[in-house]
């Protein structure tokens, strides 16, 4: 059962020389209770795709196509939806976690305030109920000593704890979909492992659906169920995880895996240097 359907999504940015496509007609279906990876290098259009879902693109970008959220058999078209509709969906049905928790959390508001504000707004909870729920959420994402954590400010936590708090904020209103944009890229590997485990648990136990945007194929291999590989605004290949890593069909996916230490298609450093020096790679991909 699908929860989010992206059909023929096109995103153009206005430039002096006329509109330029940053996302060029992509289709992607997020199934319920799955982690769908969206991989690609910087500039491939993966982040703007995630932002477009929530109508968070800058004014200089225009969209066409369709993004449909399907909850309880009610379809809601998100592209070009009125403000009120989006306001009821952001943070409530679809929540987002960004790369850097030190900028996505408000530095001057206590963790408790950031966890309860939108719960009180969306779920119409009273102060005490919201507090109790916030405490339970922090416990769920394993932030130590939740009661005192509620009174603290983001700077008093480590990077990994901050990202756990950002995830707790995103989960507060029990959204159906979580958009995670490079959620572990700023973290150390030992901390990353914990966040990945948490994401997997949330999906398996709570039935959350996640769109995971990352350039890190190691992360994809660890948690994603489906992986779509994006390049220059187009999805070049989309496959179940195992298949993508063992039997990639597109030359671009192959080239990514060739440069990835530990992958089945890894090439020797010498071969990679030779390719870099000959610059044959970019031509071979076309």
């Amino acid at each position: 059962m699908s929860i989010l359907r992206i059909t023929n999504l096109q995103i153009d940015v206005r430039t002096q020389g006329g509109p330029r496509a940053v996302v060029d007609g992509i289709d992607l279906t997020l199934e319920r209770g799955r982690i769908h990876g969206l991989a690609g290098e910087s500039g491939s259009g993966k982040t703007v795709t995630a932002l477009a879902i929530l109508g968070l693109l800058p004014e200089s970008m225009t969209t066409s196509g369709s993004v449909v959220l399907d909850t309880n058999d009610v379809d809601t078209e998100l592209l070009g939806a009125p403000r009120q509709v989006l306001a009821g969906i952001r943070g409530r049905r679809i929540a987002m976690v960004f790369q850097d928790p030190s900028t996505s959390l408000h530095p001057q508001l206590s963790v408790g305030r950031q966890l309860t504000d939108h719960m009180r707004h969306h779920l119409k909870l009273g102060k005490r109920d919201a507090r109790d729920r916030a405490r339970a959420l922090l416990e769920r994402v394993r932030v130590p000593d939740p009661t005192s954590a509620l009174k603290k400010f983001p700077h008093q936590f480590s990077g990994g704890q901050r990202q756990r708090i950002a995830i707790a904020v995103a989960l507060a209103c029990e959204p159906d979909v979580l958009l995670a944009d490079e959620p572990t890229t700023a973290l150390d590997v030992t901390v990353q492992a914990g966040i990945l485990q948490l994401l997997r648990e949330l999906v398996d136990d709570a039935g959350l659906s996640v769109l995971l945007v990352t350039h890190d194929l190691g992360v994809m291999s660890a948690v994603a169920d489906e992986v779509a590989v994006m390049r220059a605004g187009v999805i070049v290949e989309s496959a179940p995880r195992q298949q993508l890593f063992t039997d990639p069909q597109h030359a671009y996916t192959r080239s990514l895996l060739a440069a990835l230490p530990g992958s089945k298609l890894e090439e020797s450093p010498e071969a990679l240097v030779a390719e870099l020096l000959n610059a044959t790679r970019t031509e071979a991909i076309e």
Partner: protein
Amino acid sequence: MTTMPVLTASDVVVEYRGRPPLRAVDGVSLAIAAGEVVALVGESGCGKSSLARAVVGIERLGSGSVKFGSDEVPVLGIRRRPLALTGMQMVFQDPNSSLNPRRRVGDQIADGVRAAVLRGDAGSDPAEWLERVGLDPTAARRYPHEFSGGQKQRIAIARALAARPRMLVADEPISALDASTQTSVAALMRSLCLEAGAGMLFISHDLSVVRRIADRTLVMYCGRIVESGHTESIWQNPVHPYTRALLAAIPVPDGAGRLPITPLEADRLTWTEKIPDALERTAS
């Protein structure tokens, strides 16, 4: 090792002012020989960048000493450095800030060439260096913003190597690059250093890339080297609990969907342990 090391650091301590002072590097010794690639790995805040900056003289030493060949490395001041020290070059993480945006790429590489000539080494053509890092020689007339991130980093590498260094210190040179170019740029750095007979200290948090290019690896935690030695020995058979946790936490990109192992909070306490067996491990 029979040859004299190019770079020797003994009991280096770096402290930052504060109450209490923060000891970022807590008594680290290392030696790097010509034609040897040594990797320094560890998580953010473990002191690896402070150590790199200390060995090239950007950071003032709290105590200890750093020698380049037989010369003591002084702290970088307003005056021009002693000529001999231009034989040690650095590549930084972000080429956007290490390259001058307002100067042509060729002119910036020519700075390196000039340093080599002043030291009495052979001169060279900047365009030739661009070719060696896989860029078009005509790129010399262009400005940094006309290149991609990976290309810019290769220009920074060309500039450093044009000075014909005997030692290259690279602080996270690949972490700002796209994943598909990280390994190839790192491998390129290795082959150019070997070709020039220079030693390299390669700092990275990416262990899987390090495994492909480093002869020896130093694992740093909380300002100390907790494990060191032959890269493959460390990889195959890590001794220190921190190294073990670090290696177990790396996701394997084989598509099997295995979650990496998350270290327990209690384990973190063991990471500061000193284990003499984990140090100076040789190939077996």
